[in-house]
């Protein structure tokens, strides 16, 4: 290798490009590159911005339905929810920054996803977050959990968007690589959706929001590589959030959107001004000229490279109609935010960047966007573990001790410690708060209409069988929406995996997407937005495959939403078939000490039939409480309902020859526990529709009582349930 070639290789690697990509970039440029040009290629061709390893697989996902207004490819997905309104929503990861600097990493994750939603003209009405952390026994996990939760609260509470739901899991596979997936949901008029494709040669390109500094430079490139031992040295690549400025930006953007001034708008997220300018002009089939001397900066002496690659937060790029600059200045001035015309659209098909009298970059837009590298990487079919026979797995502990241990384990214990740091009520529309129902329910201000929201994934299922796990994540989200009585409409996904250059990981990815696609089709539950986060590995060990689903459903009347709380006198009825599936169950892991077997199969026809039945019963006013059966199985579901309602239950179901521990803790899918006043009516209706249903017992008293005289007091349950987080983190 010549000295020049070696220098080029090193330079390319520094910007996250492989030698082939670097050669291609040089050929496209046709001249010796500037630092800014290499930086732009490195960012736009990063995994984070280009989806170069995932795009070929993502095409399998169904994205259309009559109610879908905007599918994947914009800042967020949009679905019609009735009454001329639309829900705008998306989920996005901020995994790598949240390991390096948990507070700011999580905070700016929330800020970024909020911008993706209000960019489209929607007022954000709810935030959710799906979090995965390493082994609680690792000292560093505590730092990360505490920082991430503070960061989510610090940002969301200040901008005044209620944080209404989410999930937290722990597993050693997330040591050194936590997952922070943030979801925002907003409401817009269905006929007032703003998009990012630029239009109108000569139109001004306008920068609004916070000033540009030297923070987060090359963040997208950092997020597209695995961590080695030097992770802490990457702190300067993490952005710093200012939720106050974001709040002003929300109000100013929504005010300007009331006028006709805006042609196109996009937030400056990953790769900052580079990606917003390139994508807006590229999607519009135009060219763009930027003058960086006009960009508001908060530091002196910033180079073109730094201005183009900065990931300073709370900034937006807009294309305005001619002559509307003053309208924008008046509104943004009121909110004391910067407005600057920093460029114009042209017909060149190129991005040209001027700075201090020099052309710092001139690149055709096609190769940076639509024609960016695309890889079909080798994908090995992951081996599937055989199913476990529940009758061969002895119960080492007994039902009552197992229940107490499970309900207190890190994956099942109360999350109140985290929720109590998130403002869930701001806005005055939160009908179901965290922990009260299977999905959060937020009413649309001034209407009866409500949205049901959930995030779901069971990574241990995905690790054992990614295809089943992908389908299960979709089915569980659909089930959680159904369990509050909502009509599931669509989902956003956040696909967190290890390195795509590892064929086993790529195989997991492909299988998970296939499973998701199958479930989405069977449940009429399309994907309208999403995010892929790869290279989630530290020191060569990948995370569990974690395709998180953010589900959205609608309730015509939010007041009809059902929670999980049991109340005395209700009959407890189980919908769905129980086989006693212990493979990959939490009981198996926490009580038998094994992570083994195949995950529970997902029968999508049964999911659909049972779910449609439950939703119909809720709509008919026959259901007082409803909870899906998921992690921990049937007895955990009932215990959670009992704790939520401070009502015990006497349970004496037929167990059909299934060993008791498998009956109570097996994780068979497509099941719901209902609290109803009229069990006979529900059972008759279920039989008529061919839905398996069985009466388990009656709610009341201060104990959960099982056959054989086993009784667990609510006091003991509650103590076990509430102990872990405060004891660990306060």
């Amino acid at each position, binding site marked *: 290798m010549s000295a020049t070639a070696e220098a080029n290789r090193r330079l390319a690697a520094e910007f996250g490009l492989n030698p082939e990509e670097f050669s291609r970039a040089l050929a496209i440029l046709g001249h010796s590159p500037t630092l800014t040009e290499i930086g732009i290629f490195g960012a736009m061709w990063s995994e984070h911005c280009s989806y170069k390893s995932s795009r070929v697989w993502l095409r399998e996902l169904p994205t259309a339905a009559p109610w879908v207004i905007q599918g994947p490819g914009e800042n967020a997905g949009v679905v019609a929810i009735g009454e001329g309104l639309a829900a705008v929503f998306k989920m996005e990861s901020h995994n790598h920054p949240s390991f390096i600097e948990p507070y700011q990493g999580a905070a700016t994750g929330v800020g970024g996803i909020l911008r993706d939603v209000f960019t489209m003209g929607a007022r954000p009405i709810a935030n959710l977050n799906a979090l995965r952390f390493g082994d609680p026994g690792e000292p560093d996990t505590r730092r990360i959990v505490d920082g991430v939760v503070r960061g989510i*609260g610090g940002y969301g*509470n*200040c901008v005044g968007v209620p944080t209404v739901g989410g999930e937290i899991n722990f597993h050693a596979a997330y040591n050194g690589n936590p997952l922070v997936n943030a979801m925002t949901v907003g409401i817009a008029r269905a006929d007032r959706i703003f998009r990012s494709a630029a239009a109108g040669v000569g139109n001004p390109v306008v920068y609004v929001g916070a000033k540009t500094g030297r923070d987060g430079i090359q963040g997208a490139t950092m997020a597209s590589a695995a961590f080695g031992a030097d992770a802490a040295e990457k702190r300067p690549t993490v952005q710093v959030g200012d939720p106050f400025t974001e709040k*002003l930006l929300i109000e100013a953007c929504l005010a300007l959107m009331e006028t006709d001034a805006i042609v196109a708008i996009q937030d400056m997220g990953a790769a900052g001004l580079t990606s917003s300018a390139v994508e807006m002009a590229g999607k519009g089939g135009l060219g763009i000229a930027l003058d960086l001397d006009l960009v508001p900066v908060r530091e002196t002496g910033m180079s073109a490279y730094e201005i183009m690659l900065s990931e300073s937060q709370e900034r937006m790029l807009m294309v305005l109609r001619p002559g509307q600059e003053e309208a924008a200045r008046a509104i943004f001035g009121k909110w004391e935010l910067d407005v600057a015309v920093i460029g114009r659209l042209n017909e060149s098909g190129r991005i040209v960047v001027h700075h201090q009298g020099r052309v710092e970059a001139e690149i055709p837009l096609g190769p940076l966007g639509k024609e960016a590298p695309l890889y079909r990487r080798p994908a090995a079919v992951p081996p599937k573990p055989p199913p476990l026979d529940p009758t061969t797995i002895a119960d080492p502990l007994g039902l009552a001790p197992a229940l107490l241990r499970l309900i207190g384990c890190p994956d099942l214990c109360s999350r109140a410690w985290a929720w*109590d740091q998130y403002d869930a*009520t*701001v806005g*005055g529309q939160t009908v179901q708060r965290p922990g009260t129902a299977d999905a959060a329910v937020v009413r649309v201000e001034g209407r009866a209409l409500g949205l049901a929201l959930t995030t779901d994934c069971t990574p241990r299922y995905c690790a054992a069988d990614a295809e089943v796990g992908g389908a299960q994540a979709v089915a569980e989200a659909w089930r959680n929406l159904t369990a509050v009585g909502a009509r599931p409409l669509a989902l956003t996904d956040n696909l967190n995996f290890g390195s795509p250059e590892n064929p086993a990981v790529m195989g997991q990815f492909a299988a998970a997407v296939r499973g998701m696609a199958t479930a989405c089709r069977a449940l009429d539950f399309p994907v309208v937005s999403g995010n892929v986060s790869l290279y989630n590995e530290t020191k060569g060990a990948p995370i569990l495959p974690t395709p998180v689903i953010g589900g959205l459903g609608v309730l015509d009347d939010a007041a009809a939403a059902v929670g999980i709380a049991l109340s005395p006198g209700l009959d407890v009825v189980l919908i769905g078939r129980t086989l006693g599936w212990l493979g990959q169950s939490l009981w198996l892991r926490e009580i038998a000490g094994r992570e083994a077997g195949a995950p529970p199969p997902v029968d999508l026809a049964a999911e659909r039939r049972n779910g449609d039945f439950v939703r119909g019963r809720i709509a008919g006013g026959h259901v007082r409480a409803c909870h899906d059966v998921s992690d921990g199985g049937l007895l955990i579901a009932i215990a959670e309902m009992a704790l939520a309602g401070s009502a015990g239950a006497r349970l004496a179901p037929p167990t059909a020859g299934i060993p008791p521990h498998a009956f109570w803790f097996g994780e068979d899918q497509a099941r719901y526990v209902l609290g109803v006043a009229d069990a006979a009516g529900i059972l008759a209706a279920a039989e008529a529709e061919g839905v398996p249903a069985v009466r388990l017992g009656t709610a009341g008293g201060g104990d959960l009582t099982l056959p054989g005289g086993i009784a667990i007091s609510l006091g003991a349950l509650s103590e076990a349930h509430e102990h872990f987080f405060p004891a660990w983190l306060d």
Partner: protein
Amino acid sequence: MRAGITVFPGINRERDMAIALERVAGAPPRMLWHRETDLSGLDLIVIPGGFSFGDYLRAGAMAAHSPIMGAIRAHAERGGYVLGACNGFQILTEAGLLPGALLRNASLRFLAMDCHLRVERADTAFTGHYQRGAVFRAPLAHGEGNYFADDATLDRLEGEGLVAFRYATADGRIAPEANRNGSARAIAGIFSPNLRVLGLMPHAEDLVDPVVGGTDGLPLFQGLAAALAA
């Protein structure tokens, strides 16, 4: 009742407050940008919750110097009614319209949960629709709600009957576990000497609708509407 809601940059519960006020008054309140100074025609000024100016420097410190605060001070001096909730309470103490200060919560964490408030006197425009000693539920959501004043001030507030609400258990007991932010003498809200300025930390405005958690906070607004009906 002719009410106005002040909007500082960073305020975020102005809509919640507007919904609560409209529910009892039948008409939407006037929204007042912080640069406005003309409050004529208004008998109640509400400073809602949020993070005015990002709570940078100190919660409420910068808002206390906004142009509208001079007009609010004059309004209070004329005997006008003022309600400050959460950040509004912090702003009122920073502006000197109420004594004391709101320090960081004793746990040093942001707290967001329901609390119970005990009504310490019912013969005011704000509390007329509660019974004295009644307990009602309200969400709290703050990082700096830990009420502090020197002992002499606390003694004076208690002696003059200016404590409006205290954090209590659901059955009305004053207990450390009910006083999550660590406030002095469990104080959640205080009146001005003429009983026409009220500052409180929790959000009664977020509990005015049976669909959204209940109506425990509604009597506060109904009481105001009745008292200011003239």
